[in-house]
């Protein structure tokens, strides 16, 4: 019976002739007892005559309860504990295990108080000695059991929702904590950067002076000056990255960008570096025009960062594939701090860019940390640990999503970026309205 109809019975009363008939399953091997129970139920005064079916074994009862999955489900089971295929508490437990949701009233030949208490604790609605059965008692027990079952179902639903909410809350909390951490790092970084620039400028000027005025420097002096210059350059680039990271929000200049053009442009920039490191870089571009709104320079920076990471991860050479395609945004990550209207929502049309390599991939234990500022696996001097953090921030400023997964079925990592598609300033390419041609991209499934 549908839940609504059942609620209706409880609301309008079992005696009301306009509500649907209740369906009882009596699990009983003694035909005399079954007929008695059936008779009692018929005379109990339900508004509509209840349907009473019989099962002589637990196994049969389980099959009946499971088989009539949706059409005409039973509302309640009257269960005898002594059956040919099971006796005692075991009978109840088997039924309960197989059909945990159906309310069960135990009808027993003996009046065992301990067993009664034990089984009610385990979820039986009632325990009635057979000798004390009468129509009124059976009806009361059935009605109360159904009422309790209704509340239990409601409670289960609430518990489920609570669990879900708790999970979401926990995720939001960790997101907030991360955002807070980033915020303080940003402020710190900007402060440090400004403080360090002056002394760095002094060292630079000093170096330039020594370089210009050191007449005939010996070999050691010369290499000292070169090393010092390299050190200044390195410090300057770290500061540059830090500042970029801390205030990349200020200067995003949005313009219409064709993703395929962007990728082609980036490929030209990294071609030389890839070649030098024996890495081939291949682009598999979408056939149609994928337009987005974005800051060309900053997005270029993101793609170059990612590709250079791949190149550096593949010491012995390898292959990088850049794939662009159209998609629909699947699961979105919640961004609790962001109170904005133009964030992406599930089902939004996106341009998807996947950059995958066949390098060693990312160890599971590091996956959570790769976007942390200053986190790097590269040797000192080779990486500032800001590349991916800056990239992710830039993508977030574009209201896009960026994630790193290990490629399925092969070694290597895959970075997937999803940017909100913007077809408004170009003719809509064919297929835009043909929803079936769009592919749902989820955060977990890597589409081939």
């Amino acid at each position, binding site marked *: 019976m549908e839940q609504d109809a059942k609620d209706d019975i409880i609301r309008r009363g079992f005696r009301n002739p306009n509500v649907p008939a209740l369906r009882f399953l009596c699990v009983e091997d003694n035909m005399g007892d079954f007929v008695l129970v059936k008779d009692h139920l018929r005379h109990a005064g339900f508004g509509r005559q209840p349907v009473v079916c019989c099962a002589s074994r637990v196994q049969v009862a389980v099959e009946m309860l499971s088989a009539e999955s949706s059409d005409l489900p039973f509302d309640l089971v009257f269960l005898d504990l002594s059956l040919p295929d099971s006796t005692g508490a075991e009978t109840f437990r088997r039924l309960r295990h197989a059909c945990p949701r159906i309310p069960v009233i135990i009808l027993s030949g003996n009046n065992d108080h301990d067993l009664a208490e034990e089984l009610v604790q385990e979820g039986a609605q009632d325990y009635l000695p057979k000798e004390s059965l009468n129509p009124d008692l059976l009806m009361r027990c059935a009605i109360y059991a159904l009422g309790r079952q209704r509340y239990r179902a409601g409670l289960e639903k609430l518990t489920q929702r609570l669990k879900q909410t708790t999970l979401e809350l926990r995720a939001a909390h960790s997101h907030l904590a991360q955002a807070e951490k980033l915020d303080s790092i940003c402020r710190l970084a900007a402060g440090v*950067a*400004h403080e360090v*620039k*002056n*002394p*760095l*400028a*002094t*060292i*630079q*000027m*000093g170096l*330039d*002076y020594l370089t*210009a*005025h050191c007449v005939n420097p010996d070999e050691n002096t010369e290499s000292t000056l070169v090393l010092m210059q390299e050190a*200044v350059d390195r410090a*300057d680039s770290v*500061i*540059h990255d830090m*500042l*970029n990271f801390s205030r990349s929000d200020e*200067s995003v200049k949005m313009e219409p960008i064709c993703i395929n053009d962007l990728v082609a442009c980036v490929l030209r920039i990294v071609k030389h570096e890839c070649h030098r490191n024996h890495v081939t870089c291949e682009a598999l571009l979408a056939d149609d025009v994928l337009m987005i709104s974005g800051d060309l320079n900053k997005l270029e920076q993101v793609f170059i960062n990612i590709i250079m990471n791949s190149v550096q991860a593949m010491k012995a050479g390898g292959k990088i594939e850049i794939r662009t395609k159209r998609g629909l945004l699947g699961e979105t990550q919640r961004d609790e701090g962001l109170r904005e209207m133009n964030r992406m929502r599930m089902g939004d049309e996106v341009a998807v860019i996947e950059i995958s390599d066949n390098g060693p991939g990312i160890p599971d234990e590091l996956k959570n940390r790769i976007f942390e500022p200053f986190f790097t696996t590269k040797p000192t001097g080779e990486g500032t640990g800001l590349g991916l953090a800056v990239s992710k921030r830039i993508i977030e400023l574009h209201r896009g999503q960026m994630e790193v997964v290990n490629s399925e079925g092969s070694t290597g990592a895959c970075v997937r970026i999803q940017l909100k598609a913007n077809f408004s300033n170009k003719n809509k390419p064919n297929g835009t309205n043909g929803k079936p041609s769009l592919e749902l991209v989820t955060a977990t499934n890597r589409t081939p």
Partner: protein
Amino acid sequence: MKTKKRILVIDDDKPLASMVKMNLEGTGDYDVCVENRSSRALRVAQDFEPDLILLDYIMPGLDGGDVSCRFHEDPKLSKVPLVMVTALVSNCEMGDDGTSQLGGHTMLAKPIRFHALLACIEKRLGVVA
């Protein structure tokens, strides 16, 4: 022998200012005066009569913006080319020649290589290198 150009450096960072002075005077083309206190910048500038002023932006008390306003109000100094040197902008925000025009001033980002500073000064002074 050609006359040396006079350059006034206003920067509260003493080591940096003296390094700039050393480098500029090392070329043999410039006379450099350094002032570390922005509050005295105007008076020093009026006395020194520079051909070009290098001005730091972030300074305690009067900052580079305040100082440049005072120069603007002075009939003589308002015609002297002014180059702002600041840690506020990064090199990446600069144009190809390492300079940027912000609020009517030529801006240079710290840290700056001396040859870039020199090129900028020569350009502003109209020196043909």
